[in-house]
Structure formats: C-alpha cells, structure tokens
C-alpha cells in the first residue's frame, strides 16, 4: 500500500522519468520519443484519476523525505492539489499531442520535449507540495525547465524573451525564498494546513507577518503576472505555441495563482489574511491587474500578444476570488483556475493553428479565416465567448460566483470591476470574431501545409477541438459534482470548515 499512498510521487516521477528518457534518446528517434511522451501523459492521467477517486473517498496520499536537517520534502494530494493536477494532467496530454504535431520537422525536438516533460514534472511538484519548502523547490524547477522552452527558437528575440523571463522569475524566486525563511525564522510552520497556521504569531507581530506575506505574494505574483510583475509574460510570446499553452494554461501562471491560493488558504488562512488587512489590498491589486491587462490587450495587433495580456487580466480573477474572504467568491476564484486554463489553451491552440497553417500572426490577417478553417475558428469562438463570460460558458460561471460572492461579503465594487472587464473582454474579442466569420476572405495568407486534407494537421486540430469542448463542458455541466465547480466547492468547504 506504500505505493498507493505515494501516488503523488509516482505521478511526478512519471514525467521526470519521461524527461530523462527523452534527454537520453538520440535526436533522430522520433517515434520512440512520441511513444514516451504520449505514454507518460496517459500514465499520469491514469494515476491522477486513481488519486481523484481516492481523495473523494477520503484517502490520504503523501510522501516525505528529509533533505537536510529540518527541511522536509513533502508531497501530498489534497483537494486543492487535485484541482490543479487534474487540470494540468489533462491539458498536458493534449498539449503533448499538439506539440508533436506543431514541431514536426523542427530542430532540437529532443531538447524541447525533455524540458517539456520536466516542466510538467515541476508543475506536479508545485501542485502536490505539502509545505513551502517543497513548493519552492518545484517552483524554481519550473522556472529552470521553462527557460529553454521560451528560448527554444534560439533567435535573438527569443533569447531576449528568455532573459527577461529569467530576470523576473529568478528575482521573484529570491523574494519567495527570503519570505519562506523569514517565516520559518519567525516560528511559523512551513506546512500547508487548511485554514493556515500562523494565526497567533501574526497577531503578535502583524508588521513582520505583513512583510512575510508580501515577500511570498511578491515572489509568487511574478508567475501569476500580477501588475506590476507581469512584464515577462507578453515578451515570452516569442516561444512556440505549445509553450505558450504551457505558460498560460497548464503550468506557469497557474503555478503562480495556485501558489497565491496556498499562501492565503493554507499558510496564513483566510481569516488571518483578512485580519491583517492584507486581503483587500491583494484584491485591489488583482482588480487593477484585471483592468490593466484588458486595456492593454485592446491595443495589441498581434494575436498572441493580445491573448497574453488577456491572460494577465484573467489570471487575476483567481487572485481576486482568493483574496476576498468569502466562501462563494473563493469558489469563483478557484473554479476560474480551471476555466481560464481550458479557455486559454483553446485560444492559444487556435492561434498556433493559424500560424502553422496559414502563417497568420496579426489580427488583421484573420479576415474570413472562418471559411478556410471552420473547426479552429469555431473553437476560438467558444473560447472567446467564454472569456467574455457569455452564459452558459465556463467564464460565466466564474464571473457569476465572483460577483455574487463579493456582494455577500460586502465588496460591491467588485461588480463594477467585473462589468468593466467584461466590456473590455468583449471589446477585444468580438472584433476578432467578426473578422473570422463576417469579413470577406482577404486570402492574405500563405498555405504552409499544402496537401493536408483537413483544414490543418490532425495532430493540431484534434487537441484544439477537444479542449474547446472541455471548456464548453465545464460551463454547461457545472452542476455535476465532479465538475470543476463541484470540486472547487469541496475545497472551499474544507477551508471554511475550520
């Protein structure tokens, strides 16, 4: 049974092992690499499913080892971990398939997929970390593993993007490290415990714990792209599309949002965060980010850059939900962790499809593409409508819970933010949709994949369609207990049960 309880470790190792094997495979061993990639993704999905079932039955999963005196590497799977794990395991499978198709015939694929797997292993670690020390290890590992992906193309532009990415994330990591050790030094526990564990200490020395809080949030906020720490995200757009999917939906910004959740829920606790007056400030910061991101997105002409600023905005919905001390609003934030992931990955896949198939990078090139690539464009439409929050899409669910929850705890201003954001979302997505479906085809594109019978390669198209359907399903089927919404409610129940 030791193997069963150590499932979080196994899930992590499945990706880690895949990474090592892929690094060892020769560059030319394309089939083997594909096999390892897909097999690892499937195996992990199965492991995650088993854990999901276990956690529902109240089983506990955990693994621990001492790394140094007083420093414990601890992996565990609780409800919150599983929310994130499931999201990334599912999306990883599709991203892998998509990436295999996307990188067909491009150089350095061995390196790419090695780091790709490493990246997911790090995400697993972030999700299952049982204490801040472990969280930090995988959080930094995530930085290291994504850097070669961001710079994958090796062009001066890519190198610059990588440099900026590193500068932000490593500085953030340093702040996080300082915060963690300061917390440990102040007598706080590094363990993640539902409801937090620093209540009394924080009451005794609120100033110190405020500093710790902002060091931690500042460090993690870099990955969550909180304004003013968001600067790396638009620059990192130079990376290949699957990497963007990874950054925006599967791993990186998610790790940031997830980390903020951990800090607020399981280190400080919602009550303590609120008692120290930190919650509203964080919420205000999130609100500013939401509006700022949307406004900036409006001005972008490059598809991926517009999507990137959209991410800056959307990820802060999660932070907003977490920061306001109320159960319903928290559900809104948590569920958006999943919803935003599903919707954003759809959008990036679509952007990748257009770029790969027709060489389209700018919005003004999209005129009439809906006729040439209907499936992709339909998927994009689904994602975009979700982002705007049209009922009954997933985005609508998130916004509904956020709005009603905020009202419940007396933060009416949030409604204004949500409305403004929705208007902005519509303003930068609807013109795109109009061009796709209603503008006459300009044919201002180059056919890059001549001879393909479908609108594009199936390896690109199928994942795109599936994630779009998942995004749709998450909204339509939100009433099911296993839906993201149901799961988010379970997490919040456990947090607020204290």
């Amino acid at each position, binding site marked *: 049974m030791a193997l069963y309880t150590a499932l979080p470790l196994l899930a992590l190792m499945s990706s880690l092992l895949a990474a090592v094997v892929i690094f060892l495979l020769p560059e030319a061993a394309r089939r083997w690499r594909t096999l390892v990639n897909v097999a690892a993704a499937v195996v992990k999905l199965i492991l995650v499913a088993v854990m999901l079932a276990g956690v529902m039955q109240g089983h506990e999963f955990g693994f621990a080892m001492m*790394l140094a005196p007083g420093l414990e590497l601890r992996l565990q799977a609780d409800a919150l971990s599983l929310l994130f794990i499931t999201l990334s395991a599912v999306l990883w499978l599709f991203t892998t398939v998509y990436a295999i198709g996307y990188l067909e015939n491009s150089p350095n694929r061995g390196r790419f997929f090695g780091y790709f797997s490493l990246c997911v292993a790090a995400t697993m670690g972030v999700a299952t970390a049982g204490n801040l020390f472990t969280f930090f290890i995988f959080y930094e590992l995530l930085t290291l593993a994504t850097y070669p992906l961001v710079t994958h193309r090796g062009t001066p532009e890519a*190198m610059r993007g990588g440099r900026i990415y590193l500068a932000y994330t490593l500085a953030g990591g340093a702040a996080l*490290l300082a915060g963690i050790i300061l917390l440990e030094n102040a007598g706080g526990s590094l363990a993640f415990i539902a409801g937090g564990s620093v209540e009394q200490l924080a009451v005794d020395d609120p100033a110190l714990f405020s500093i710790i809080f902002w060091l931690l949030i500042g460090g993690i906020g870099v990955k969550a792209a909180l304004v003013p720490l968001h600067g790396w995200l638009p620059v990192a757009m130079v990376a290949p599309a699957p990497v963007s999917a990874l950054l925006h939906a599967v791993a990186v910004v998610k790790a940031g949002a997830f980390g903020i959740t951990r800090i607020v829920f399981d280190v400080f606790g919602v009550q303590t965060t609120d008692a120290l007056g930190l919650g509203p400030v964080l919420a205000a910061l999130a609100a500013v980010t939401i509006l700022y991101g949307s406004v900036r997105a409006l001005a972008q002409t490059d598809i991926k850059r517009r999507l990137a600023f959209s991410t800056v905005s959307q990820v802060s919905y999660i932070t907003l939900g977490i920061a306001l001390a109320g159960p319903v609003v928290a559900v809104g934030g948590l569920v958006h962790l999943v919803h935003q992931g599903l919707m954003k990955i759809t959008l990036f896949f679509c952007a990748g499809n257009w770029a790969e198939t027709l060489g389209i990078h700018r919005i003004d090139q999209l005129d009439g593409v809906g006729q040439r690539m209907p499936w992709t464009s339909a998927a994009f439409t689904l994602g975009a409508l979700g982002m705007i929050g049209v009922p009954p899409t997933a985005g609508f669910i998130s916004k509904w819970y956020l709005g009603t929850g905020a009202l419940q705890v007396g933060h009416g201003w949030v409604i204004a933010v949500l409305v403004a954001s929705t208007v902005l979302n519509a303003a930068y997505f609807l013109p795109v949709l109009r061009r796709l479906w209603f503008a006459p085809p300009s044919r201002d594109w180059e056919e890059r994949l001549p001879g393909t019978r479908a609108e594009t390669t199936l390896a690109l198209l199928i994942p795109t369609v599936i994630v779009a359907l998942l995004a749709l399903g998450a909204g339509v089927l939100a009433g099911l207990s296993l839906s993201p919404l149901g799961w988010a409610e379970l997490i919040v129940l456990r947090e607020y049960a204290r």
Partner: protein
Amino acid sequence: MNEASVLPVESHPGLVLLVFIPLLAAILSVLLDGRAARSTAVVTLAGVFGALWWVSAEVAAASQVRHLLGGWGAPLGIELMADGLSLAMLWLTWVTGLAVSAVAPASFAGRAEVSRLFWPLWLTLWAALNATWLATDLFNLYITLELLTLAAVALAILGGGSAALRAGMRYLLYALLGSLAWLLGVALIYAGHGVLDLHTLGVGLEVGPATWFAAALMSVGLMAKAALWPLHGWLPPAHAGAPAPVSALLSALVVKAAVYLLLRLWWWGLPALTGQGVALAFGVLGAAAMLYGSVLALMQLRVKRIIAYSTIAQLGYLLLVFPLASMAAWQGVLYHALSHGVAKAAMFLAAGNILMVVGHDRLAGLPQAMRARLGPSVAGLVLASVSLMGLPPTGGFIAKWLLLRAAFETGGVVWVSLIVLSGLLAAAYLFRLLAMLLRRPPGGEGDGVPDAHGAASLPVVLSVMPLLLGIVAVLLGFVAAPLLELFLQGAPFVEAAP
C-alpha cells in the same frame, strides 16, 4: 556533540593511511615513470576509500579520531586529527580525485611527458591535501601548504605555453608570499606560547599583541593562497590556463585548503580572538569577494574565465560563517564547500571538453558547441550551474537555504540581502553562459544533426564525467541530512534550541 563523554581513539592507523596511500602511490609513479598509471590510480582510490570508510565509522561513533605520530603527542610531537569537517573535505577530495583520475589518461593522451609528470604530481597533491585536512600542527601545516603550492603550480603549468608559465609564476609568487606570512605567524605563536598544536594553543590562550599580529599574518597568508579578495589576482589566469583536470583540482580543492585552514585557525586555534570585530572583518571580506567575483565573472568573454571568477565569488560564501557564527551557518558553509567543489569540477571538465572539441572557449563561439555532440558535457554544465546558483533541487540550494536561515537567525538584513544578491548574480553570469548554448548558431540553420567529427574526437569518459559530477551535485541536494550528521561531528557550534 557529546565530545567529553567519548574518549578519542588514540592513534588510529586510518589517518596515516589516508596520507600515505597516495604518497606511496606517488613514489611508485615516479619509479614506474608513467607506466601502470591506471592500475596505480585504481589501487590508490580503492585504498583511500577503504581508509576513509574506516575513519568515517570511527568519527561517527566518537566525534573525533586522532593519531599521535611517533607516539609522542602534542605539544612535543605532531598529531593528526579527523573530525566531521576533515571528513567532509577528505570525501570531497576523494570524489574529485576519482573524477580527475578517470579523465586524466584520456585528457593527456598523446602527451607522454605531461602524463608522466601528472601522476606523481597529482598523487602528491592528494597526499598533501589529505595531510592538510588532518593536520593540527601549525608548522606541519606550513609544510603541507608548501607541498600544496609546489604541486599545484607544477600542475598548473603542465598546460604548456608561455601564458601558463606566466600564470604559474604569478600563482607561485602569491603562494610563497602566503607561506612566508603563515610561517612568520607560526614563529610569533611559538615564541609567545611555546606550542605549535592548534588544540593545545586553543586551550587557555592568552592574547597579546604578538598573537593578534600572528593571527593577522597567518590569515593574510591564507587569503593569498585562497585567492580571497583583494589577493585574488593570480587565480583567474592560473585556473583558466591549466589543463581541465588540473583546473578542477585547483578550484574544487586546493584553494579550499586555505579557507579550511582559516576556519581551523580561528575556530579551533584562536577561539578567544574570534570575536565580533574579526567576524565582521571576515564578513566584509567575504562579501567583497562574492560581489567582486560575480561582477567580474559577468564581464568575462571566455568560459574558463567565467568559471574561475566564479570560484573567487563562491569562496567568499565560506567566510560568512564568521559573522553568522551559528550551527546553521556552519552547516551551510560546510555544505557549500562540498557542493561548490563537485559543481566546479564538473564545470571545468565540461569547459575542457568544449575547448577540446570547439578549439576555443570564447563565449561567442559556443552555439557551435551544441552541434558538436557535447550533449553530456553541456548537461553536466547545466546541472552544475544550477547547483552553483543555489537553485533547487541541488546541493548548492541546500547550502544556500541553510546560510540564509543562519543569516535570518543571527545576521540580519544585510547578510540576507548579500546572499540573495550574490545568488542572483551567480544566476546572471551562469545563465549568460547557458544562454549561449541555447542560441541558434549564426549562419547555420541548426538542423539538429550533430557533426560526427566532434563526437569522434572526444573519448567517452571525458564526455560523460561532467555529467556524472553534475548528477552528484544534484544528488547532494537529497542526501544532506545523513551527510551533515556525519560532517557536523566536532563542529565548533552547538545546535540552537528549536
């Protein structure tokens, strides 16, 4: 830590074997004049391993082990002593020695005279290193320091060419100056106290101006040998100009011998002097080394120079034990010495491979290195760099964590900022190097097909060794708990109450 309750084992033969197995091997290699070098090395490695295991078991049981040479004992005779600190350095020497002995035959292939000289020089250096780790007698240490100096300089000039001779001469002058300063200090100590044994000296030390001056002289002498700022000028040309296996030895071990003695001198020999003023002075020197070395490493255009300047910076960390003065700091410094040693050896060996295949080690020419199937070397370089930056999951990370923890406990915000800043600088200069490996080669499309020429010219052992050392550097991040338990035997600090 219950030193008083366990009697030290008198005259344990293992200590003598640790010095004399390599020494006899050196004698043998002179007699055989380069023949049977491999078998000699294998037997020596096995013998030293056995002795080291034996002594480690004793130290684990009795916290320290001694050998009264000639049966006399201090203050008349000379004693050898092993405690946790000695063991840490002895094991590091063994591991580095294993790597260097393994690559040396391939590295010096085709250069008979160099190979003939390498073995006696390296084996004598090994004996001298082990003698240094075990010595407690100040005058005996003068001799071991001279052995180290002559062996190190002789090895450094093996590379050939006037640049190496020039660098070696500079190294020799600094080192001889250091020896003389040490000797003058020893003379003053003997004149004032009538003893040469560190431990006898440390008990009931009466402090006069002569003792202070002696301590200052010996410290300056050691600083010159350890290339601590501002006496670092000799190190970059000497370490960068030596053959790769030699650079590994010099950087991982030889400079560390001087820092090791600095710790021994102040914490064992002159504990009464080691007050706040001294602590602060060493702290400032360490800080200067960390910052200066890092900044200069950022400005270098050659791989080996970057690594050499990094050594200057990394040695500065070891001095932080003076201002931080706690068990956590001691753990951190000890672990830093180990992980830096392993990582540096990996980096220099990798740099040697790059030099061998690409023909130069200029940063600008590195993108080609990737194409010449330097995969394992580059992987080793990456892993070692991650450890040097103090990022998880590596030995360097554990060391940095422990040091930061100590800084928060005792030092305050200045030392914390220093460690954080220095870590970021290390990341900056190392990523500058790593980024070159990801960059697309100018001109060539980088079609991912490695050119066979490079692969053919690099023997497997050379190619794989940096990777193996890099893996060890990572593994050090997972075995800190048991290692530190052994290496903290006889530490000059006690664990702070939790």
